[in-house]
């Protein structure tokens, strides 16, 4: 059954007709066409589909699209503003925290959620904050380094 859905994604308001069984991930990727958010398992176990829903990180494969009715979604495409990378993105690039890149959007969004919540996390807190995001390529070493660099960049008051 289809129902109307009002949803704001990266600041853009969308008014869609969406089947009630579909996930937020499906709607972001298929209806809105933002394919930066990835599907890694469809079961909330890998974190590749992480987006921020009203600033809270969610596995968008586990959220029904209609649960996001009237709410704000931020995806990876909404992070760089005016062609300028967000400091977290900058840090992931400079530290070599990206290999295949398939986990990267989710990893970056989880980092954003972590640093929004706690701008100065300890190493332990970083590990806890990103435990739900799997990466098969990097061994996470450079991801941890990137989060630490991002934390400093943000503290230095870079825009974002």
């Amino acid at each position, binding site marked *: 059954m289809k129902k109307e859905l009002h949803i704001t994604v990266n600041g853009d308001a969308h008014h869609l007709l969406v089947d009630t069984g579909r996930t937020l991930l499906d709607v972001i*990727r298929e209806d809105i*066409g*933002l*394919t*930066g*958010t*990835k*599907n*890694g*398992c*469809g*079961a909330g*176990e*890998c974190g*590749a589909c992480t987006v921020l829903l009203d600033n809270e990180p969610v596995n968008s494969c586990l959220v029904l699209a209609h649960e996001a009715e009237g709410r704000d979604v931020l*995806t*990876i*495409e909404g*992070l*760089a503003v005016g062609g300028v*990378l967000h400091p977290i*993105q900058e840090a*992931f*690039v*400079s*530290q*070599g925290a*990206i*290999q*295949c*890149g*398939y*986990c*990267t*959007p989710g990893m*970056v969004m989880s980092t954003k959620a972590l640093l929004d919540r706690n701008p100065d996390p300890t190493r332990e807190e*970083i*590990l*806890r904050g*990103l*435990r739900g*995001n*799997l*990466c*098969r*390529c*990097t*061994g*996470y*070493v*450079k*991801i*941890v380094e990137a989060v630490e660099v991002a934390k400093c960049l943000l503290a230095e008051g870079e825009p974002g």
Partner: protein
Amino acid sequence: MTRCIIGKGLPRIDAIPKVTGEAEYTVDLKMQGLLIGKILRSPHPHARIKSIDTTAAAQLQGVLAVITAKDVPGTLFSFYQWLADKNILCGEKVRYVGDEVAAVAAVDEDTAEEAISLIKVEYELLPAVFDIEEAMRPGAPLVHEGNESNSNWNVQRLFGDPDKALAECDYVVEGTYVTHAQAHSCLETSNCVAKWDMKDRLTIWTNAQAPHTQRQEVARILGIPRRNVRVINSHMGGGFGSKLVMDMKVPIAAVLSKITGRPVRIVNTRSEEFTTGKTRYPYTMHLKTGATRDGQIVVRDLELIGDAGAYHDKGPATINFSSMMFGTLYNVPNIRFEAKLVYTNKEMGTAFRGFGNPQVTFATESQLDELAAKMGIDPFDLRMRNSNCAMGTTSCGAEICGCGMSECLQAAADGIGWEAKKARPDDGALRGVGLANMVHTGGGGRFYGFNSAEAFIKLSDEGTVTLITSALDMGQGSHTTMAQIAAEELGVSLDDINILSNDTDLTPYDLGSWGSRATFMDGNAVQAAARDAKVALVAAAAEMLGADPADILIEESQIWVKGSAEKHPLSDIVDHSVNEHGSPISGTGRFVDTLPEGYTIPTAFAKNIPCFSFGTQAVEVEIDPETGQVRVLKVVAAHETGTTINQTMAEGQIEGSIAQGIGFALMERLLRVDGKVQNDRFLDYKIPNIGDMPEIEAILVESEGTNGPFGAKGIGEPGLVPTAPAIANAVFDAIGVRFHELPITRDAVLKALKEKQK
């Protein structure tokens, strides 16, 4: 020589598209009229198909095609076609839980799934074999009828006189080592889109590590000319060997597309990826190592049984490669390697980072520590005494040019604090350190009877560079490596390089990204192409500036005459050459890895490897006596790079390999009951998460003697090879228990600790 670009830890050239979500993967492609394909898979490990009724599925609204074995070519397929054993869709019987039985194409995912559920298959269950012992027993049910037994592929290698050496040497250790099925677990699952055009050409969009050989494989199984198949890659969400050999979803999508006249996409679910996406080959290895009193390893004797699963795929090639690495690690004069590949009613194996080497290295390097213990000497000393050396031929014929093994061993031992930690007084903490060496190919192999690569370069009229290479980037970063090589050789900045490498209509024929091959092979071709283009560029500059070509210098896209302070942008020179003389600048490069004299495929053995790479890992572990958990605290990984092309990326390859190695050593195993995988999701099949990782110190050891680009070797796989034995050796050091089977799970550790207390 000063270098501007080689060796630096520059960011990947695809980092920005990947970090902004702009990078398109095959699953992201959108197409007009795209249909969704789904595969009906066998629920039984071994059964005869009595009947298939597709009527209800075909009548479902939104279903455009339903196919079974009678709709697809009956040709059998394998990586080695002379061992062909796999059909596109099973017609008579299924051989594992997950075997392809039928497929549908529908307007959307839900409809396709519903159609699949409406297909009725009547099976007659057959007795199945799940482990190699069972499968090899006389009279065991045959996975493939017509064979005499379930083992119809084997290999023997013999160098020296192992029996004599075993009888005469002073120390012999013997043991059986077992490894299990590890899943590649790429974050992007295997997927493809197939589409025919009006000229009967088939285009496949897929995440393939070897698009050209997959193009041949698709043509071979469909019985169509190779020229009619085009394979297009996008960004790839991981490979690790899983995407080398064609998966049956590709010809299935092709047939569905042919019938419907529309593009058809098939994407593995995560469960399909775990249960049908193929695994690392499980090995059971019975090994003997013998040494003289003065610590010289004189003999190694290995009986190996590889569990193929239901089909051969890369099994024969994997075991062959195992034998080469087994024969080459240390210069052991007497070597015997006897291996069998055995069919069982399970998901098949395939290539997986390390390609059979992590399994045998687990056995050889674990046993080396057992030998050291028996001899009462330090495992470090035993390794150092037997270390491979440069510029020699081993007893099995391996030609070692550069070799940094001793240096790697020393660096890893120093990094972990070997001497101090071995001498540490017992403070009650269950801590230990372990070492393991490895040898691996640093440049693919000559297994096809040849090993070559080509690349093309063209400069735009503004001096930017388009590099056409077949080096396939599955995430490991070979595009950046190729761009760095081209930029350094040509004297342009990295930002000026644009890579095209994703389309078999465009790229030169190539064997693909495997065996730590791309840097060495494609890198050499790229360097040659850049050198070729540079000759033209220098000639143009000399003409324009009225100088001798020998005096022209190019660096970072600036050109000047030796001794002159006036620098010219490269764009001026190219613009002049193109627009004044009608002479565009381009270059062609080819690298042919010359085969050694007398090379033949059946006899070449270790001469198949164009360049070897050596490395050592040292680890420290701590064991929790309450839970049995082995916690890896630190890994020091010293690996040879020849010449480091990109420091950050080389470290990244080692760190990622170690993560997969820790998974292989401690966590990962597909568990089956009656042939059915029980842990087909990340919740149950655990791969290392960010909290499981130790501190890693990656040490890049540069060494000479390799004819790779700027002296570089491949670094994609070595980091995985010695991780498991180093951990097993550290566990022994910590608790005095020797584990002969991977993964070393908490249960196994607790059980061992309990038995030890008795």
